[in-house]
């Protein structure tokens, strides 16, 4: 039996809040073996990042280890002297952070930042350290290390920055690599590349990995074992295979249910959210922390606090009734929603039509000749990476950004470019729900005033009728009436988004633009917001323009989908067709990049290792040709034609559809043979 590399023994970490000590992490014990990859998952506020920082003994000023030990190679990190600790940090334990942009020093060239590790821990001279740094940059697949090393962080894309951070972490050949949400801030295609890099590096390096993430699918891809945290406690732990095949804690099972599987549609089933919220850490009862939200709780759960108990050979669960944990999917017999009036779509007048809409900012073409129609009651999904122009398109439609060229028409009637110049009726018809729960409501106003103003301006109601309508809206989004007098700071992120949705519905809109409405929320909250949106749509026959970077969510919710790249729509069609071959080469890489749940390893991503060109230097011809693995001559010079694949499914590409289809179907079939799920060395 080898000695564990990292051992957390009954660790409790508390924060000083005013006069109280609040436990952010409670009695967590876990072990990471040499060579093993351990994934720690949980929603925001569950204490996983605090735990990661404790592994490097880097707690905020008001944080302290109130009990337990953090042992690295058998030595207690919290009793070491500062010099001893420095010899371990960056050398034996290295870290990769969530935001590579801020983790790198903005005033030092990236090569020097990597070289610093060699100089400090290996004692290399300036020259040798620089050489070693270049080697390491090459190892993390940076193609021109000499050029990149001389750049400052702001000159690199997010993916490149993260590669530099990874190079810096690996420079000292550490025994333990702590990855704190290393791909959360990145685009899906970049995330896929980085995850792929981790998998490859695991073959080359001996380092153990402690992987912190909120994303179960990502953890599955990288790790051997997984621990699930809830409200500061480790509530389930086991091998990836065990936990993913048969979760033994109701919370884990519910988490799986919240995530729309890639391919599940709204007509198939409703998403199961988790009712209620995370308990207040300062005021915990005696029972199981998950009890108030648990579907299988009993009296004992309210009284007694469960310890971690054995649920399989290497499987632990903090649930008295772990054997009764419902299988994911089984607990959600909720019927799906009928498809929106898709069949009659073509013969109805479009609600919204865009004709050659373009938008420039200076020299940059953010939007280029967009044609788009949305039918009444339809849900149109828009996907694309950051910088694809999807949010700008939303703003043009809403009237927040006037188009530079082209026209926007509502009910076949051309509307003005800015909301203030539109008629009241037109403004009422198009409303928007935004991305950031923290900024979507005026923090100085009470909900009564926020909703009241919207009702008054959009619905034209005053006095008692205004108040009644506001209350009805609040009830529609399933918030209690007493919240009317609250200010936004009293609300959780999900509740704020509900208020924002209520505000958008104040004047019975015909089209609501949803700009990444759930991307800042936890999955359990996301599910309930998506369900709410579906309910509201069924009652009011409103059309949605749903914008998201999450393909699974878009596919779940939408009737039709458009894919955007650098200000153009490159593919558009019915939701069930868009993600079946043939698809645009860009869509192919997007789909391959989606980390998927399941016991099977996903397809190797189609690497888009070339950074996308910015809107300022849009390539001529097909904008995607600089990254397209199949680009040939005409792609570089001329704009590609629209090709009709039937059923209203259109692809904008130079490559013939049957050629695309043949190769893509083949690619799906020869998907990399699923590796056996790697299991860490047995203790």
């Amino acid at each position: 039996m080898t000695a564990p590399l990292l051992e957390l023994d009954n660790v409790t970490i508390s924060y000083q809040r005013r006069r109280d000590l609040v436990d952010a992490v409670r009695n967590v014990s876990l072990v990471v073996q040499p060579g093993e990859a351990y994934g720690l998952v949980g929603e925001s506020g569950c204490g996983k990042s605090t735990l990661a920082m404790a592994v490097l003994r880097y707690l905020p000023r008001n944080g302290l280890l109130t009990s337990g030990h953090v042992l690295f190679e058998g030595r207690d990190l919290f009793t070491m002297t500062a010099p001893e600790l420095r010899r371990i940090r960056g050398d034996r334990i290295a870290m990769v952070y969530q935001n590579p942009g801020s983790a790198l020093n903005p005033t030092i060239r990236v090569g020097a930042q990597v070289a610093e590790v060699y100089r400090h821990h290996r004692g290399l001279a300036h020259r040798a350290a620089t050489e070693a740094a270049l080697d390491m940059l090459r190892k993390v697949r940076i193609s021109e290390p000499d050029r990149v090393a001389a750049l400052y962080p702001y000159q690199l894309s997010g993916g490149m920055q993260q590669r530099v951070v990874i190079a810096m972490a690996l420079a000292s050949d550490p025994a333990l690599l702590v990855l704190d949400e290393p791909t959360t801030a990145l685009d899906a295609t970049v995330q896929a590349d980085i995850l792929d890099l981790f998998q490859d590096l695991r073959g080359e390096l001996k380092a153990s990995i402690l992987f912190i993430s909120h994303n179960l699918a990502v953890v599955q891809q990288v790790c051997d074992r997984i621990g699930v945290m809830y409200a500061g406690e480790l509530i389930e732990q086991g091998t990836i295979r065990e936990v993913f095949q048969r979760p033994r804690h109701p919370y884990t099972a519910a988490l799986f249910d919240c995530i729309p599987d890639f391919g599940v549609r709204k007509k198939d089933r409703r998403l199961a959210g988790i009712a209620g919220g995370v308990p207040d850490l300062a005021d915990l009862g005696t029972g199981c922390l998950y009890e108030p939200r648990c579907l299988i709780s009993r009296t004992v759960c309210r009284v007694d606090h469960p310890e971690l108990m054995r649920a399989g050979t290497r499987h632990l669960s903090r649930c008295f009734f772990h054997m009764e944990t419902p299988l994911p999917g089984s607990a959600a017999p909720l019927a799906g929603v009928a498809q929106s009036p898709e069949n009659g779509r073509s013969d109805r007048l479009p609600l919204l039509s865009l004709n050659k809409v373009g938008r420039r900012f200076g020299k940059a073409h953010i939007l280029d000749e967009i044609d788009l129609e949305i039918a009444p009651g339809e849900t149109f999904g828009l996907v694309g990476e950051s910088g694809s122009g999807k949010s700008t398109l939303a703003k043009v439609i809403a009237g927040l950004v006037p188009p530079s060229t082209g026209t926007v028409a509502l009910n076949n009637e051309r509307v003005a470019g800015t909301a203030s110049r539109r008629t009241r009726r037109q403004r009422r018809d198009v409303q928007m729900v935004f991305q950031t729960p923290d900024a979507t409501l005026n923090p100085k106003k009470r909900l009564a005033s926020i909703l009241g103003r919207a009702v008054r301006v959009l619905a034209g109601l005053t006095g008692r009728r205004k108040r009644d309508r506001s209350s009805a809206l609040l009830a529609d989004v399933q918030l209690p009436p007493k919240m009317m007098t609250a200010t936004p700071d009293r609300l959780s992120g999900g509740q704020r988004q509900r208020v924002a949705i209520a505000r958008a519905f104040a004047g019975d809109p015909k089209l609501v633009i949803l700009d990444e409405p759930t991307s800042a929320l936890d999955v359990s909250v996301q599910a309930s917001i998506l369900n709410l949106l579906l309910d509201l749509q069924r009652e009011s026959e409103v059309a949605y323009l749903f914008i998201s970077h999450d393909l699974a969510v878009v596919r779940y919710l939408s009737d039709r989908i458009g894919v955007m790249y650098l200000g153009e729509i490159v593919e558009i069609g019915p939701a069930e067709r868009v993600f079946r071959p043939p698809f645009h080469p860009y869509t192919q890489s997007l789909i391959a990049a989606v980390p998927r749940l399941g016991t099977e390893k996903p397809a190797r991503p189609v690497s888009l290792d070339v950074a996308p060109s910015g809107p300022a230097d849009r390539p001529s011809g097909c904008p995607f040709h600089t990254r397209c693995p199949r680009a040939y001559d005409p792609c570089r010079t001329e704009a590609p034609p629209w090709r009709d694949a039937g059923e209203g499914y259109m692809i904008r590409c130079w490559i013939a559809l049957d050629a695309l289809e043949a190769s893509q179907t083949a690619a799906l079939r020869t998907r990399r043979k699923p590796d056996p799920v790697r299991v860490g060395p047995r203790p």
Partner: protein
Amino acid sequence: MLRFVGRRVLLLAFTLAVASVLIFAITNVLPGDVARIILGPFAPQDAVTRLNAELGADRPVVVRYAEWLAGVAQGDWGRSYAFSTAVFPLVLERLGRSLLLAGSGLAVLVPLAIASGVAAARREGGLFDRVLSTVSLAVGALPEFVTGVFLILVFGIWLAVLPIQALPPDGAGPLTVAAHLVLPVGCLVLLLFAYLFRMTRASMIEALAADYTRTATLKGLPPRTVVWRHVLRNALLPTVTVIGAQIGWLVGGLVVVETLFKYPGIGSLIHFAATNKDIPLLVGCSLAITFVFALGNLAADVLYAVLNPRVRHGRNAH
């Protein structure tokens, strides 16, 4: 870098243009004509009219402004009434002395304030930090003539260790010159220390809490390296811009300090011009001060660019 400096120089030119219009406007367009201000309320009206004609104050404003600006550009800054001499050389001479005073002030101030700010931030909430923060808060808000009076009373009169006049007797050695400068320089430093100290401290605290500092610490670098190599440069960025703005306070401080310590610099000259209604002199002094102040700001901007690669390489580098 060149483009950045070019832009800044253009901005400087614009600033000076606006400043010249402002100076001209205040001295020519404000109610109350120039001759009346010079001659006083009891002078006969025909004398006022004659002087106005002599000064050219009865012609259109734009023409006068153009002529005035042309003269300024050629070094013809008019004649001082009180000194009966050309304004330009007088201003230049006085400016030189003031720069000595201001330069000594900055030379003491900047290292002192930055070092204290860094030290206080590294032990945030410690004794040094709390004492210095409180003391600087109290002292920094005091008008310089108040601190000056206290300094003179304590060191010049009760302890009698330092001269209370800034100008040394003719032919004095460098040591005597320095001794005469101690109190006025101390007065300037006390005026400016608080702001610069607090700014350094605040940006230092921010930089110490930044993600890149965490990265450096978790690389296992010793605290000294973390601070010197990773934190300081980022922390100094906002401080440098503040130094630029501080030059304005410094100039304002000069007016008072030179008056209080009877030092013949540009500050006491402009005060003299203002109280004696010597308008050409007043305008000349204002011009000179504005110019120097704008140059100081330009220097701060360039230093900022040197420290900040993002500005240095232009925004669009990719």
